[in-house]
């Protein structure tokens, strides 16, 4: 296509405002798909960062840091204080102890900003008390619930023994962070915004790859049928009729039931469903092109059939095939989503939009609408945009609508 005719094409395309909008929307989705890792605030595939405490949070809530517990043994030996972690878990909290005069010991929690749920000191020596703490009715455990400050003071009226060991246990409350779940979380505590962005990525990739592979396969078969005519044509076209006669989703379900799930298998299922559209379109347009005189001229110039089909006939069928391709991307995306929704598509760990809709489906009646609705809206917008784009391309291709 020359530059001038492309400009003309672009100008005619731009005459429809909905087409321009849908092109823009489609490009935004492609952009999202390409740059999802940069755009997404979290990586939804990283399972280690998921925490159930974040599950099913509504839109706009903040991520919570879960409460932690730290235990240390505090050994006092002739005035020397050593702090030994009793449990090896890594926490943000730590405990320290220091002397605060004769018969006085301070146990403090670091960082001081941490809000504590409780601070407990066990095995106090006889006679020692903790201000404001409650003693366990039986055990020598002293507990302060919701302490105001981050340190406690152990004092004793009598002198403390020369050496003794305390066990200090600090429990922090759940803590709000600055991270906001802009679109809420799903039932695994995944950030929906990130999941949707990655879901777009999967949907767009599956749509493009599947529709593209179907286009190549179907077009090749269609051209072959058109060139061979006769029995080959009849066989291929009956296969097409057969494929078109069965519901697409049913075929997809059957294929995935046999092969199991996974991205490549979903792509394969879509290709098997969609090649027939391309074959039929390519065949019918190739037939009409083959009847034109320039093909006869090419045969008269003794060009090989492959060259005639690929160099002369195919480029003249391409506009129609590209229209079909655009429409079929949308169909492929919706089919992938449908299959995932039905639970046979992609694995749970790599959620596509359909999978997200499915995972929110069970919560939708408990007013946790965001898990299904947001991916649903995104899917809807994406498919509508693709379809409008395809429709516009088809209109531009139709000489009867052109003036």
């Amino acid at each position, binding site marked *: 296509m020359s530059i001038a005719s492309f400009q003309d094409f672009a100008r005619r395309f731009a005459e429809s405002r909905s087409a321009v909008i849908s092109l823009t929307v489609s490009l935004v989705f492609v952009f999202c798909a390409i740059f999802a890792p940069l755009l997404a605030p979290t990586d939804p595939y990283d399972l280690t960062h998921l925490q159930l405490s974040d599950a099913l949070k509504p839109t706009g809530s903040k991520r919570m840091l879960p409460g932690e517990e730290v235990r240390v043994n505090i050994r006092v030996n002739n005035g020397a204080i050593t702090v030994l972690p009793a449990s090896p878990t890594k926490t943000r909290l730590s405990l320290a102890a220091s002397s605060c005069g004769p018969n006085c010991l301070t146990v403090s929690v670091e960082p001081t900003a941490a809000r504590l749920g409780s601070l407990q000191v066990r095995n106090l020596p006889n006679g020692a008390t903790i201000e404001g703490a409650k003693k366990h009715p039986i055990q020598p455990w002293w507990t302060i619930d919701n302490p105001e400050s981050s340190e406690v003071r152990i004092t004793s009226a009598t002198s403390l023994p020369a050496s003794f060991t305390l066990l200090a246990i600090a429990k922090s409350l759940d803590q709000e962070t600055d991270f906001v779940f802009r679109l809420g979380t799903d039932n695994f505590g995944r950030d929906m915004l990130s999941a949707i962005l990655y879901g777009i990525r999967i949907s767009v990739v599956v749509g493009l790859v599947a529709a593209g592979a179907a286009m190549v396969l179907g077009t090749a078969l269609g051209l072959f049928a058109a060139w061979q005519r*006769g029995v080959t044509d009849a066989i291929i076209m009956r296969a097409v009729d057969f494929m078109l006669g069965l519901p697409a989703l049913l075929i997809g379900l059957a294929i995935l039931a046999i092969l199991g799930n996974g991205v490549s298998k979903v792509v394969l299922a879509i290709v098997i469903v969609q090649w027939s559209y391309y074959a039929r379109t390519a065949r019918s347009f190739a037939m009409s092109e083959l009847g*034109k005189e320039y093909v006869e001229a090419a*045969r008269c110039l*003794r060009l090989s059939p492959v060259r005639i089909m690929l160099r002369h006939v195919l480029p003249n069928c391409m506009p129609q095939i590209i229209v079909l391709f655009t429409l079929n991307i949308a169909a492929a995306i919706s089919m992938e989503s449908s299959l995932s929704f039905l639970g046979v598509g992609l694995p749970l760990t790599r959620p596509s939009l359909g999978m997200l809709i499915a995972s929110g489906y069970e919560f939708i009646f408990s007013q946790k609408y965001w898990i299904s609705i947001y991916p649903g809206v995104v899917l809807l917008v994406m498919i509508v945009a693709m379809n409008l784009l395809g429709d516009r391309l088809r209109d531009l291709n139709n000489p009867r609508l052109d003036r």
Partner: protein
Amino acid sequence: MNEMIFEAKDLSRSFAVGSSPLQDFTDHFLRNRQPAVLRAVDNVSMTLNEGETLGVVGESGCGKSTLARMIAGILPASSGERRFRGEDYDSFLRRKRDALKVQMVFQDPMSSLNPRLRVGEIVGEAAVLHGLVPRSRVKDYVVDILARVGLPADSVGRYPHQFSGGQRQRVGIARALAVKPDMLICDEAVAALDVSVQAQIINLLLDIRRDSGLAMIFISHDLGVIRHLCDRVAVMYLGRVVELAKTSELFASPTHPYTRMLLDGMPKISAQRRRFMPIQGEIPSPLNPPSGCHFHPRCPMVTDHCHRVRPELREIEPGHVHACLNVEPHSKRL
């Protein structure tokens, strides 16, 4: 000069109408019916000498375009023989580079050029692929050819839709000339053009014939164009040749009733308005042609004989043959 370049002997071509393998199957087994067969070309024999132009004239459905495609080797014959310089056509066509010696110019200036290719590629493609010209020199080669058909050098980079009908037809002629043919088949090559453009293209063909001594088969429904361009003329009716003679002789003294009717119907430019004789009868469907002589339902001199017997081509004068049962040799006037 009188070497024969092409010969067709009893050439026939039939088409099964509207059939598909499935339909053939059901027709054969379920409906017990033979598929309809269209005999587009029916036992046509003709010869073409080196440097000669043979005209084929006839109305729509007479099979002249099918004949053109069989001669060009892009349509196989159902039966009969084709020879190029004495060699059997099938083995000739198998040698791709030699087969380029027969080329064709088409009717429709719109559809005869691939709209997605630039003129440079349309004209140069085959010459490069068949090794007539190295790829590095193809541009100059194409420019030369385009100059021969009267197109500017900058046409090379343009697309067919950027040309007028006459210019497109020139591109079509250039495409055929680019592979150095010895024989050119023009299928209604000027029919779709305006009068003034038609004259330009006819002159171009005359120039090319004079310069390169091409043998030509010129197929047309336009008797005026045929008379102007051709050395000999074959008149076809419903798939058969009914008369074949030197152009001057055919136009001066046509012998077959159909040829006469055709010449009478030919509009002539004259300031004196001529009152038409009403000529009765439709062209019968080629699917179901009349028995015997195909022309008998419209023929003014029909006899019982004509309904039953298929007339063979008979020589009525040297070089003048016709297929009529009633007009005897040497009694050309009725």
